[in-house]
């Protein structure tokens, strides 16, 4: 449907294309379903579980002792903003799995955070460099509002999949909906296919 009196804002072309339905944002909006979590690095830890078994646990210091990866990427939030050229530093899920001496099981992953947030993604979308635990944004410690001290980052999916205040990844055989997915958000969430809601 055409809105005849609508012409859109005159704007510079983005450095790279942005996904359909998105607009370019210079700032870094904060969108969280509840209060910002107050996470103490001294007691924080992160675990990887396979089914009911914990196969690896890392403290803040142990995470920082693992090989670090720098990532330059674009972000796409389901609330319609995209932000290009963001710089992150952290540890790939591959590095965590290697450190635990295991390979990623085929299937799905449920990410869980302080505050009770959860989100689901296929296993294949957190390995091969696609998923990281990040602690540094633009050279600075990641702020709590943006998920610090440590958040998940899976930049090829809508940003609700990149759980803030991450505490665990649990590998599961069968896909299950996480927090937003239960409210009708897409189980996969590919911004390039505009998979915002369940039937998109």
């Amino acid at each position: 449907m055409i809105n005849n009196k609508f012409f859109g804002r005159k704007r510079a072309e983005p450095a790279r294309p942005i996904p359909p339905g998105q607009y370019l944002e210079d700032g870094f909006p904060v969108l969280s379903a509840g209060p910002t979590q107050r996470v103490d690095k001294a007691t924080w830890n992160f675990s990887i579980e396979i089914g009911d078994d914990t196969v690896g646990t890392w403290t803040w210091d142990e995470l920082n002792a693992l090989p670090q990866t720098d990532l330059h990427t674009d972000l796409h939030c389901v609330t319609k903003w995209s932000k290009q050229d963001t710089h992150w530093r952290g540890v790939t899920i591959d590095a965590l799995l290697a450190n635990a001496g295991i390979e990623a099981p085929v299937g799905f992953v449920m990410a869980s955070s302080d505050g009770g947030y959860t989100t689901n993604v296929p296993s294949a979308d957190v390995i091969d460099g696609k998923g990281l635990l990040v602690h540094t944004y633009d050279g600075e410690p990641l702020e709590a509002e943006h998920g610090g001290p440590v958040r998940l980052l899976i930049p090829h999916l809508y940003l609700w999949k990149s759980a803030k205040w991450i505490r665990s990844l649990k590998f599961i055989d069968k896909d299950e909906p996480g927090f937003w997915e239960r409210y009708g958000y897409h189980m996969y969430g590919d911004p390039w296919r505009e998979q915002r809601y369940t039937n998109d």
Partner: protein
Amino acid sequence: MNSTATTDWQIATVTSIHVESPRVKLFTLELPVNTPFRAGQHFDVRLTAPDGYKAQRSYSVSSSPEPASNPTSIELAVELISDGEVSSYFHEAVELGDKIELRGPIGGHFTWSPIAAKPVVMIAGGSGIAPIMSMIRHRSNAAVIKISPMLLMFSARTEADILFSAELESIAVNDPDFNLIIALTRSEEVESDNRSFRQFRRIDRPTIKSALSTLATHPSRSYICGGSSFVEAMANYLLDLGIPNNSVRTERFGP
């Protein structure tokens, strides 16, 4: 909770436009399909320019979900954002009878139903009142015997910026279980003729502490909606005052 959202695009018709404040217009949109929603949910609006350029934004519904059997129209509160391509279209171009493409309802966490007797706290900043207004209207329409006491703290710049002021004051006057505090952040007390329910400073920790002390019990839920830094500050006050983290639900607008 529903496992699916209504995500088919609909073409709605603008049936009413009301200038609610210098920066906010209310649009009533008639939907072609009966579209039940829950108080607090939002809709996605999609505009398409003649050259094919598209823009989407989300707007919270401010109208009540009743009657549940026939919710064929919704009210959206649209704040004019500087450089906002969608909000400026609504403010400057949309006329009665125009068609608007939208889909929804969307969201489900920032929703409320007046079923519990325990008190509920609402904190709104500016146009963040919109989804909360839907909840307040839902509560007023509720056909249940025991309705949750509700406390609303509403921050606005000046008297002219208070959305839904007459309706809110009327509820507050008539319903002893609805407590209203309107915090004017850029208005001197002497400038205002209307002092009922007003405080002439921002919502701060003492405001919230004193308001919470009027409730019989801790609120079962707290809902905060507004700009990002406003929501952040309010959520931190609530946590500092001992409100459990998992009882606080937030909706944040903008950077």
